[in-house]
């Protein structure tokens, strides 16, 4: 059974369309990144998972439970870090976890969870005095309670320093190893790139693309950029290189000491061999994969 089935979801607020016929499936055990610029509709989608927001059209099912009609059963299998939450000022970190355990009907060791998110020392402090990052860690710990089958994280690294963001990534990977499905939204590309099996890109309420990172790279074009340090290259040679199979474009840079080529992965060696055959001295070369950044800009029309 699929962890999340989104069927033709639309959400309109008056004349504004927040989501437009979005349709995708997340399989069990996947780490799925939901990527898009701010305002693309990512949180609206997650709020529909949680039944905070009712869709104008379509259905979402979590492990087969309709989020609108069987929301409680759906949420019983989820651990959530929602957007725009606020902790209870007067409750301590430990009391927050106890409240969630109470609500989910499970019993776990609060200190162990707090240790995992790095809040062990703050266990008995009232959450009203927490920084944004500490609150974020606390809510993450709450989301992990009861080993949920699906973990939904809305912009999980907001408010975390780079160290905290790395710990967040580790926790996501640990949870995935345990067999949990992880769905998280982000507008920060590196995070998605680092942990996700698959990515959906949302742009202005529409699903612009959905694929693996590699798949998306391929579809962006070529996928690989070669930078070759050379001596004695002539302009005409580049035209020859561009005729090679799999090569998209070749040009000179670094005042004629470097040839740059965008090409498919398979064509890399052919390019180097062709240059060598043409009498060019190849001193060094390196390849650079098309970054997700370029890809993201491509899909969202560069309108970030």
């Amino acid at each position, binding site marked *: 059974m699929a962890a999340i089935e989104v069927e033709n979801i639309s959400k309109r607020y008056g004349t504004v369309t927040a989501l437009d016929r979005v349709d995708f499936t997340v399989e069990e055990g996947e780490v799925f990144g939901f990527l898009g610029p701010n305002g693309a509709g990512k949180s609206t989608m997650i709020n529909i998972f949680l039944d*905070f927001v009712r869709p104008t059209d379509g259905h979402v099912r979590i492990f087969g439970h309709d989020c609108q009609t069987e929301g409680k059963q759906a949420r019983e299998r989820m651990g959530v870090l929602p957007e725009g*939450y606020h902790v209870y000022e007067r409750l301590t970190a430990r009391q927050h976890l106890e409240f969630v355990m*109470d609500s989910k009907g499970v019993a776990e060791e609060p200190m162990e969870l707090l240790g995992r998110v790095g809040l062990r020392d703050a266990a008995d402090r009232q959450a009203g005095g927490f920084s944004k990052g500490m609150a974020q860690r606390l809510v993450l710990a709450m989301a992990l309670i009861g080993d949920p089958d699906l973990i939904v994280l809305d912009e999980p690294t907001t408010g975390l320093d780079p160290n905290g963001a790395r710990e967040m990534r580790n926790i996501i990977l640990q949870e995935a190893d345990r067999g949990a499905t992880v769905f998280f939204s982000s507008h920060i590309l590196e995070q998605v790139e680092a942990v996700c099996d698959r990515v959906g890109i949302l742009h202005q309420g529409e699903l612009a693309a959905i694929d693996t990172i590699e798949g998306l790279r391929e579809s962006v074009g070529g996928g690989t950029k070669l930078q070759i340090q050379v001596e004695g290259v002539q302009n005409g040679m580049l035209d020859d290189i561009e005729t090679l199979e799999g090569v998209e474009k070749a040009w000179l840079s670094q005042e004629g000491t470097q040839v740059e080529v965008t090409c498919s992965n398979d064509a890399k060696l052919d390019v180097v061999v062709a240059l060598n055959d043409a009498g060019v001295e190849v001193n060094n070369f390196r390849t650079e994969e098309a970054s997700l950044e370029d890809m993201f800009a491509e899909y969202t029309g560069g309108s970030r």
Partner: protein
Amino acid sequence: MTWQAIARKDYAQSRDSKLVRYLLYFFVAVCLLGGYIYPITVEADPTKGEFTGFMTGSITLLLPLLAILLSYNSIVGERESGQLNLLLSLPNKRREVVFGKLVGRGLFLLAGVVVGLVGAGALVVYPFGSITVSSTLSYAGYILLTLAFGGIFYGIGLAVSTFTTSKRLATMTGFGAYFLFVLVWDGVRQGINIGLERLGVINGTPPDWLLFVYGIEPTMLYDRLVAAFFEEDMTGAYLSADASWYLGEWVALALFLTWVVVPLALGYWRFEVTDL
């Protein structure tokens, strides 16, 4: 299973609110004071039901305030700050949230009314009165009616809490309702009477249909029910024998029960259908 967790949390939070605590103590103290003073001021057997009428003024002034204070912020406060997002991302139904909060916060209302009125009742009958089964049952009925009266204002506060999206607006609407119903309703009635008289629509006393409209207001209904069922004082414009039947206690009881149910149901319904 989950409404208990919410009830416990809201109970703890309300307990920590100084305003709720002090108002609760004050309400209980006023009840006890009433129970202490009343037997001294009357010459007849104090056990008779007049004590209930004696308390109406204090109860209609304080209990609605306590009830609205407990409920007006119950949803909108957590919604505006985002605590509701945490609460509802857990396996809680919205119904369970409303019910859990009703139990956790309503406990203060229950405790205040029961402790205050049972204590007051004890002071009234001790040492000069007497207790009978029927008077005890009647007094229990009076406590129940008073609880329901508090429930009306809890419901009004809840509806305010789910129909508004900002705490500021909820505060204004909630205490506005208290102000209108409890503090200035008499003045409003008199103002309308004077206006209608000037216009020549009414002459001297307002007609029964107008009294009916005035009397739909919950504190007036409570006052009438206490007078009719517990004080057994069938006088005045509404209860005397020559008043129209629809001004009487049974219609008042129906209207009173409508007040108990409708705001609460409306408030819950609104919360159920709305996007957060």
